């Protein structure tokens, strides 16, 4: 792997990778903020980032219910550098067209599935794609825009994505890419809270969705360099609870397999992940020490 170039290139040029939640199950149920309105807020926001600095770059990745895809990349759009030719609004016909294609593809892929128990969108997929894209930017040389990820999420967390989302978060942390998140759903998202906390990003759950654009511009439009000078919303209390491997429910106390660190919500005889058998002491000395160790806990 090529080494990550020095981050000392302090500039206010940013690359914002926006992860757009397009989960139809969430947006049809959301009454306070229809998708069209949400989209117009987001488009105005994307526009304003591009206007803040000529070299700013925006990439939009849609995370749908069945698939994820890139739907907009300002660097591949040649006309975007000419603000005087009056083409600004038509930039987004491109985005809307791709978004529509994506939604149709997403719907088609979901046709053959009847069970609709899970209502989450594929956050892990879009996060992984965003990180791959950012690595490519890092590889491009010592002069590159400062990347960050912005998750615009509304659907609830998908517990089955826990491991993948955490892997993505740690990878982002290692390459010092902050993950900002703006959650428009009903309850707080534990995944996004952790993502923003671990990577040093900002987590916001807007109180008034009508003013979404204002939240976006005041909090998420500032580049990483300027962030140190302004007062950003601070975390109100991060949910560090894990979800257990057996029922995928969020727990605050549980049992950990000492061999593989799998989390279970109740006592099992055998670990379903690694196959270790528990509670069977293999020698007398160790069982004695087990008892001693367990005594103060139980």
């Amino acid at each position: 792997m090529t080494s990550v170039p020095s981050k000392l290139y302090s500039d206010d040029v940013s690359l914002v990778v926006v992860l757009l939640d397009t989960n139809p199950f969430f947006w049809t149920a959301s009454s306070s903020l229809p998708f069209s309105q949400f989209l117009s807020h987001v488009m105005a926001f994307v526009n304003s980032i591009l206007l803040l600095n000529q070299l700013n770059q925006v990439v939009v990745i849609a995370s749908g219910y069945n698939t994820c895809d890139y739907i907009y990349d300002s660097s591949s759009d040649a006309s975007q550098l000419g603000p005087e030719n009056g083409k600004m609004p038509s930039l987004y016909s491109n985005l809307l067209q791709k978004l529509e294609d994506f939604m149709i593809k997403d719907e088609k892929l979901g046709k053959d599935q009847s069970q609709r128990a899970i209502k989450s969108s594929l956050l892990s997929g879009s996060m992984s794609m965003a990180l791959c894209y950012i690595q490519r930017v890092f590889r491009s040389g010592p002069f590159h825009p400062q990347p960050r990820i912005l998750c615009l999420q509304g659907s609830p967390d998908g517990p089955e994505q826990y491991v993948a989302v955490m892997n993505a978060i740690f990878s982002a942390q290692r390459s010092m890419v902050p993950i900002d998140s703006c959650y428009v759903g009903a309850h707080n998202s534990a995944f996004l809270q952790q993502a923003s906390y671990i990577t040093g990003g900002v987590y916001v759950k807007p109180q008034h969705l009508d003013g979404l654009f204002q939240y976006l511009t005041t909090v998420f439009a500032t580049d990483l360099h300027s962030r140190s000078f302004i007062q950003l919303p601070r975390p109100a209390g991060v949910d560090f609870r894990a979800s257990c491997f057996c029922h995928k429910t969020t727990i605050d106390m549980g049992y950990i397999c000492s061999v593989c660190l799998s989390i279970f919500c109740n006592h099992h005889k055998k670990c379903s992940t690694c196959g270790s058998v528990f509670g069977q002491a293999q020698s007398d000395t160790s069982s004695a020490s087990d008892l001693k160790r367990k005594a103060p806990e139980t």
Partner: protein
Amino acid sequence: MANNIAEKRRQQEEDDEEEDGDLDGWGERNYADERSWEALQEDESGLLRPLDNKAMYHAQYRRRLRSLSTASNSQRIQKGLIRFLYIVLDLSRAASVMDFRPSRMAVVAKNVEAFIREFFDQNPLSQIALVIIKDGVAYSLTDLGGSPESHVKALMAKLECSGDSSLQNALELVHEYLDQIPSYGNREVLILYSALTTCDPGDIMETIQKCKKSKMRCSVIGLSAEMFICKHLCQETGGLYSVALDESHFKELIMEHAPPPPAIAEFAIANLIKMGFPQRAAEGSISICSCHKECKVGEGYICPRCKARVCELPTECRICGLTLVSSPHLARSYHHLFPITPFDEVTPSRQNEPHRRSQKTCFGCQQGLVNPGNKPSLHVTCPKCKQYFCLDCDIYIHESLHNCPGCESLRAS
């Protein structure tokens, strides 16, 4: 107008970049590498150009990946993830030998520092302690602990060498400490041995048997030559024995010990450990912490069982004794358990199939997979989701991300 200026600026930047790259390359080759001619090759027209390292690096990386995946090919992966590791540094007079520059001791210290950081990144619930052999005796430099900074600081403060080296004394000392840790932990010793002799007070064979009996996995990295006693120790206790050829080889060898070793059933006894996942207290909340017995504002964690406040994770609750961790601590190790399959290289014949030619960009980063001359460059494909990836993404995905973007963006039915 603005357009033109921007265009010019970009071009200029690109030019600068190229120059910078070349200069850096030359600088390194001129000063760091004595055999600079080995890094050159001749192209078709007889011009000299730097070796194309990319393909070579990738081949190397793939070999490593394959060896790793075959080693853990059994469908259920067992790894010893809760490790208690003693690092034994030989600071006898042999450590001052200058065959490694500036000296063996300096090289060992530098790499141990890097190793400690890497170790805690990969094993957040594990603990390290440092032991030093000097003047024929072994003494403990730091006790088992989970903070990389304190170990590194202690190590750097005590860097001088003298006297003989004694393997038996070191093993006896470590054995005494490791015998006390709970049975679910993996007991490991990593000895960095510079000397060619060992000056022991008693029968070292007895000590080795004692170590074997208490299930300590002893590994040795030698800095001079292979020694029978070290080899014997490693064979008996199930560890790895290797001898470093040069500094980069030594670094490679020591880093091999950072990922958790496969758990051997008889070594650590599987157990369910009850743990709590505390929530972070809200900013500005005032409470008395149970660890310092002081009144503190915000920045704490609340034990889910007894609601006591603790300052740092991972720890054990002072009030109810529950082990408190945060889920990210555990999640850091999960990629060891759910590794992603190595990607297959795409052979030219398969590229020629018409239905496969449609995808011309890397699924991860959208980079074109076609060279300027419309010649498809080397790329890989995931055997599960059949998406194509470029070589850079391949390495990033397997070494850092541990997620396949293609598989993650498909709903598993």
